[in-house]
């Protein structure tokens, strides 16, 4: 909101220069920037009192101690307005309504001072009657409205909810259904939306001679409801939603008359109606000096506090170990002791506070928190060589459906766009989107992961997703990277479980809607399914415009975390030398690694310490339909040095067993 420096000075003749004004306002909590001829202020919602020039001047006056100059007003007593009726069916929506009737007015052009003031804040001049109410809005921040009194039917002002079928065309030319909205009505129809905007049907026009000035209090929620439904963002709504000063209303009416008569001396005040269903009463409370010091951590001098309270209008009385204050109407959200404390320190200055650290007794500290768990996990995954990504928690419903499964996902009622309309049940879709975008930008060898909440109805499990592309290009000069991405992924998953000390994981064949049929595996832990890994199906690759194979994995960390950690008994270091033997078995292509490894494990070779696959080979030398799997066996006894003979006996037994079982022969 822009405020003219010259205009502010009308109420604070000794105001410091513009830059200083801005600095002072910033110090009191109004975010202010200097612009040409004035200041731009960004108000927090609790500061309707500073949404006008007088309010800005008042703020500066309290801060600087400079005297505040009250503008002149019309002093003659108002007569009661006979022949008019005012009524309200909603004391909450409209607790107070002032209506002042003035005759012999004319919608003449405004005088130059008024035009100048309005133009200084980029408001357009219309005519004197309209301009004056606009001027008052910017002087005191309390919106008023001028009706053409001859267009108010039946000389009646009724504040009521719009009825079924009633409509109102507002001053901006838009037509609205008025049903259920708080209206100002005459004897037959709505003529304004209370606190939001007037209607065309009662608007002041060039022929207006009798004017009914409205100054009222409206309930913020009622004003918000109307504004929201009609989608009207008016200056009036903006202020009524935040609150107006109930103590200055009559003064504003009198100010209007004063300014009007100065231009149109022939105008005559006929009288006014003041319906006050809920008279404003100041909140009285005790500000305890001990409490003040306890919250702030510093002691302000008694005199300083008293002076501040006086200048803010709290009318303090010193007793009961503090100050009894009555909270002025313009401070709309100051109704408690803590609010008064805020007002005091706001003007005393936050730079006065000490900087000390609290000496505190210990408090709860969960060393096993989810955060600690996830930080540990992040560290390990990063060490393994994966790159962390962060994607949105929402995505477009069509993509979500490809991954989510049958039940309904959680939809947003008011998404910013269709591409962000549904909450994710899997991390993968958005992560694959990231992968795809990276591929389009020419980035290669992508090994991405993401961790975070997913949304399953009422619960939010923490998931981990990993995506890996095949690297057709070597990453460094020393190594080819022609591993199948699935095996790279599987290696990461297995290593992760080892590093985290998680219990054994079981990998089983399990179909999954987004995975290629033959490479679709389920991950089980403690008998429960915790996730999937495999290769993305062609349908999904096509959906994301990907032209290369992608290995993915997604698992439910909440389920993993719920499992007890794997026991890790200490193993004594063997004292005796071991014997290492490499053997390559030639088998049919259809025989899997797991077939051979399983047979080796169940053969129970004595003293077999470890066995590892060290080579897989397929080539002409073996003949078609054959492959060779090379295993490295290490034998060791904890009690003695083994002899070659006994180890070879075991090996011979194994070789003949594998020959029987799989037709395996030793590769020569």
């Amino acid at each position, binding site marked *: 909101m822009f405020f003219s420096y010259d205009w502010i000075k009308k109420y604070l003749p000794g105001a410091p220069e513009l830059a200083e004004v801005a600095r002072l306002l*910033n*110090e009191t*909590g109004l975010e202010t920037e200097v612009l040409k001829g004035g200041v731009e202020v960004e108000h927090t*919602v*609790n*500061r309707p009192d500073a949404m006008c020039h007088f309010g800005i001047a008042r703020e500066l006056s309290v801060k600087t101690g400079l005297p505040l100059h009250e503008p002149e007003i019309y002093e003659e007593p108002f007569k009661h307005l006979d022949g008019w009726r005012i009524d309200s069916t909603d004391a909450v929506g409209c607790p107070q309504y002032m209506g002042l009737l003035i005759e012999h007015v004319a919608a003449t052009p405004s005088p130059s001072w008024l035009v100048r003031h309005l133009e200084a804040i980029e408001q357009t001049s219309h005519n004197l009657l309209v301009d004056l109410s606009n001027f008052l809005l910017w002087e005191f921040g309390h919106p008023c409205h001028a009706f053409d009194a001859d267009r108010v039917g039946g000389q009646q002002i009724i504040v009521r909810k719009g009825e079924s079928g009633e409509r109102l065309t507002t001053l901006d030319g838009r037509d609205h259904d008025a049903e259920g909205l708080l209206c100002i009505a005459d004897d037959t129809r709505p003529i304004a939306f209370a606190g939001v905007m007037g209607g065309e049907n009662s608007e002041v026009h060039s022929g207006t001679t009798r004017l009914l000035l409205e100054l009222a209090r409206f309930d*913020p*929620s009622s004003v*918000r409801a109307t504004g929201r439904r009609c989608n009207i963002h008016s200056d009036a709504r903006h202020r009524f*939603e*935040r609150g107006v000063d109930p103590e200055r209303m009559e003064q504003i009416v009198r100010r209007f008359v004063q300014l009007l008569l100065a231009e149109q001396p022939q105008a005559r005040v006929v009288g006014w109606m003041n319906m006050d269903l809920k008279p404003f009463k100041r909140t009285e409370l005790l500000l305890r000096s001990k409490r003040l010091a*306890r*919250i*702030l*951590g510093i002691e302000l001098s008694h005199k300083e506090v008293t002076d501040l309270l006086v200048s803010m209008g709290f009318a303090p009385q010193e007793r009961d170990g503090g100050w009894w204050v009555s909270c002025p109407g313009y401070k709309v959200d100051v109704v*408690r002791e*803590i*609010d008064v*404390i*805020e007002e005091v*320190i*706001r003007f005393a200055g*936050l730079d006065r*506070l000490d*900087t*000390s*650290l*609290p000496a*505190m*007794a210990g*408090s*709860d*500290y*969960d060393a096993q*928190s989810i*955060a*600690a768990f996830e930080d540990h996990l992040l560290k390990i*995954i*990063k*060490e393994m*060589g994966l*790159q*962390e*990504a*962060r*994607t*949105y*928690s929402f995505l477009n419903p069509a993509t979500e459906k490809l991954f989510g499964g049958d039940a309904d996902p*959680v939809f*947003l009622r*008011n998404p*910013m766009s269709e591409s962000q309309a549904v909450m994710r049940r899997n991390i993968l879709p958005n992560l694959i989107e*990231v992968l795809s*975008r*990276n591929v389009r930008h020419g980035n290669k060898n992508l090994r991405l992961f993401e961790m975070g*909440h997913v*949304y399953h109805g009422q619960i*939010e499990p923490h998931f981990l997703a990993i995506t890996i592309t095949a690297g057709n290009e070597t*990453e460094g*000069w020393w190594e080819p990277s022609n591993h199948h991405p699935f095996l790279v992924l599987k290696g990461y998953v297995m290593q992760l479980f080892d590093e985290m000390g998680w219990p054994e994981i079981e990998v089983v064949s399990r179909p999954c809607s987004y995975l290629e049929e033959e490479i679709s595996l389920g991950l089980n832990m403690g008998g429960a399914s915790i996730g999937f890994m495999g290769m993305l199906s062609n349908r999904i690759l096509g959906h994301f415009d990907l032209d290369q194979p992608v290995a993915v994995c997604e698992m439910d960390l909440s389920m993993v975390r719920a499992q007890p950690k794997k026991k890790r008994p200490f193993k004594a270091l063997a004292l005796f030398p071991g014997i290492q033997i490499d053997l390559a078995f030639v088998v049919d292509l259809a025989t899997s690694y797991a077939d051979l490894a399983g047979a080796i494990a169940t053969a129970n070779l004595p003293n077999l310490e470890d066995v590892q696959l060290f080579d897989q080979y397929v080539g002409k030398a073996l003949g078609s339909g054959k492959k060779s799997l090379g295993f490295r066996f290490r034998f060791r006894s904890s009690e003695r040095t083994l002899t070659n003979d006994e180890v070879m006996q075991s090996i011979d037994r194994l070789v003949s067993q594998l020959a029987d079982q799989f037709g395996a022969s030793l590769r020569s």
Partner: protein
Amino acid sequence: MDFTNWNLEQALDSFQQKLAACDDHESWQALRLSYLGKKQGLITGMLLAMRDLPKERKPLVGKQVNQLKQAVEQALKDSPHAEARSLRKSSLDVTLPGIRPKCGTLHPLTITRHRLIDFFRSYGYDVGEGPEIETTYYNFEALNTPESHPAREEADTFYIDDDRLLRTQTSGVQIRYMESHQPPLRMIAPGKVFRRDDDITHSPMFHQLEGLVVGPDITFGHLKGMLQAFARHLFGPNTVIRLRPSFFPFTEPSAEMDVSCPFCESGCRVCKQTRWIEILGCGMVDPNVFEHVGYDPEAVSGFAFGMGIERIAMLSLGIPDIRLFYQNDRRFLDQFRGA
């Protein structure tokens, strides 16, 4: 070879002179070959020639040749030129790039989050977690923001239905924490939050870190002291902080904290020539909030603060556009090693 005029001392002298003339590994190598080389080596030749010697001379000459061989071998071994000085002249090209282990990367938001959490953990703050789909109660009512409050319109909230929404702040975690813990307590709640906003500095999803300290005598000065220590942890020991009064529904009094611009001495683009950068919002916990969780506001007081992790990351890592965080371009992710 004729051994008639040969004697050991001369042979040794001659070798020592040649050895002394060696000034690098190449000449040493040539000398070694000329004595011990398998084809043309002098001593090798002698040993071969011994076969033709008369039987009676063999023992003496053989002994002397062996002495020569041992002496030559020893002297060659002891020579300073016995080893190549420059690795470049060996078969290994040490200028090849080293074989680097494949390290992954953490997202810059995680890196920043860790920097923040590290600070607060060192002061004994617990770390809280909570749901991202919140009830209106925990996001608003319990935080002193009833339906009628104007702040509720401004929050620009994503709603699921009338009762559930995407949390607009992590403060709900603090409420849940207070419901299940008794003061004194200190905790932080880092996490995702959502607001309907999307431009170069706003993202519909972003991350916050909020903190809460409650105890019998917590003051505004403690808040300021804590924040000053925090600002210095983040931006260096000479950082100065400034508090400006502000408004949040759940704190009273409320303030915004600025830090002295860590990037300039006299105004720059980042601080918009003001020398100050706005970092976070804070304040003393509003008594209404305590009442909602069953604490007695006369018995305890507390402070709370909250900041956007993206904002801190953008400032400290020099990232110009918030959207980069969520595009996850590998060229972006690769940039923050060592950050």
